């Protein structure tokens, strides 16, 4: 999306993308929950070269108090990039870009939470990018959503993010860094997949309205694949926790333990969408 670089080829002679993917193929994806031992809930994602951690605290008392909302919880999302997560060292102070991404991720998660259940409380989501690659705001949304589930926060549905775009004239899902940088358009998206609702939508570049229609169709296939991985890791995490509980007679007293037992089946069902 820069106009100064000579357009490099983004497809090989077989019509595959430079990393060998087909146009509708995702980069390698790895998900994990309960990664951060001091948080109420947490998760980790590797998506392409993105390496992102999410920690969730709450529902908990809100400081400063005057920001409390009488009839619901305040959701706060903080997205931060590590200084070494990108090519040139990022300065430690949050940039305007990080503030904006924090906002769009918050608005991507918020519609699926029952904030009205926790008046005057805070739910805090901290996202730390350890390494950044194309689509880091989407991957952050994906990982934050399962960190919320891991914290036992009830949800209407899990939220799933991925980008779609156009590179070298072709529509492609899940843009790599280079496709994002020298491609024609980037459309980061997040959805409550089971509910067919978009909760995050941005677009930079150039698309006709017909291309956009096709792009959204394509992206929903990619969303489904990631969504199923999210469900699987949460299910496995849930089984694992049940085993841990039956193994040990008494809960550990270490203050670092994650209160995973708060996730019960009700939450997981609601996470399937309704």
């Amino acid at each position, binding site marked *: 999306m*820069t106009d*100064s670089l000579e357009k490099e080829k983004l497809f090989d002679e077989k019509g595959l993308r430079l990393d060998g993917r087909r146009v509708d193929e995702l980069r390698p994806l790895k998900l994990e929950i309960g990664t951060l031992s001091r948080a109420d809930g947490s998760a980790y994602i590797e998506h392409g070269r993105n390496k992102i951690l999410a920690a969730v605290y709450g529902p908990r008392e809100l400081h400063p108090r005057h920001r409390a909302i009488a009839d619901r919880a305040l959701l706060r999302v903080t997205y931060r990039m590590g200084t070494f997560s990108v090519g040139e060292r990022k300065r430690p102070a949050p940039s305007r870009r990080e503030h*904006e991404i924090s906002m769009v991720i918050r*608005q991507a998660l918020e519609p699926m939470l029952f904030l009205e259940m926790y008046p005057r409380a805070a739910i805090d989501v901290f996202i730390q990018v350890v390494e950044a690659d194309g689509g880091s705001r989407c991957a952050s949304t994906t990982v934050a959503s399962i960190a919320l589930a891991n914290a036992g926060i009830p949800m209407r549905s899990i939220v799933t993010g991925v980008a779609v775009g156009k590179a070298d004239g072709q529509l492609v899902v899940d843009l790599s860094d280079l496709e994002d940088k020298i491609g024609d358009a980037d459309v980061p998206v997040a959805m409550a997949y089971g*509910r067919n609702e*978009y*909760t995050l939508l*941005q*677009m930079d*570049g150039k698309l006709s309205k017909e291309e956009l229609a096709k792009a959204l169709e394509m992206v929903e296939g990619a969303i489904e694949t990631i969504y199923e991985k999210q469900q699987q890791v949460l299910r496995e995490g849930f089984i694992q926790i049940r085993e841990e509980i039956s193994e040990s007679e008494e809960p550990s007293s270490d203050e670092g333990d994650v209160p995973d037992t708060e996730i019960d089946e009700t939450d997981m069902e609601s996470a399937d969408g309704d």
Partner: protein
Amino acid sequence: MDIISEIERERMNELLQAGKRIDGRGFDDLRPIKIVPNIVSKAEGSAEAWLGETRVITGMKVSIGQPFPDTPNEGVVVTSAELSPIGSPSFELGPPGEQAIELARVVDRGIRHSNFIQRTKLCIAEGTHVYLLFLDIYILADHGNLIDASHLSAVATLMTSQLPKVEVDEEGNATILEEFMPLEMEAPPIALTFAKINDSIVVDPISTEELVMSTRLSITIDGDDTICSMQKSGSGTLTRQEILDCVERACQIVKKARSVLPKR
């Protein structure tokens, strides 16, 4: 903070279900647009934009600087927005908050990804000297839809701006001349913002509509009728069909909007 009574909220919903809006406009009607260019003689460009009662001033200052290492032949446009109490009792002093940051970035991206201004035209000497344009947006009255009004005033500022000519000698010293030239540009992009209130979606929301909307979708349509930027915000959701409908409607509405912009 602005608030709205339950009665007003209900009345608005009833009107919307009947296909009407609280201020009498149709769902696809923009408020009147007025542009007053060149209001600040010390700025290299400036314009005041009115979108109904919403009022925004943008001014542009130019300086000469180095390009970013990865784009050695491109100038730099830096957009920022100031939401001071001048424009609304709900704005506060201090460094830009989330709303001001989003506003500036949405305006910036809508211009950046359009064909409007080629940043390579802002290059003076590759790798060493480029124009830096600072577009600063000040909100004078917020009666809703700051994004579209700010976009209008930023675009009008660029369209009526004058860059100082610059000479770079062999030793790489730049001299800013007293001569000016207009910026080269294509047809400008137009930003159109839709608000979803229950199941109705209206363009160019006023403050009262913003108070009850669940979701906002801003779409920037370039001079060639392609989409060059989108931004969903708010804590609601949109279906794929709703998104595509908004894009379709934006492509129609933009034609009217384009006619009111200043000509070069």
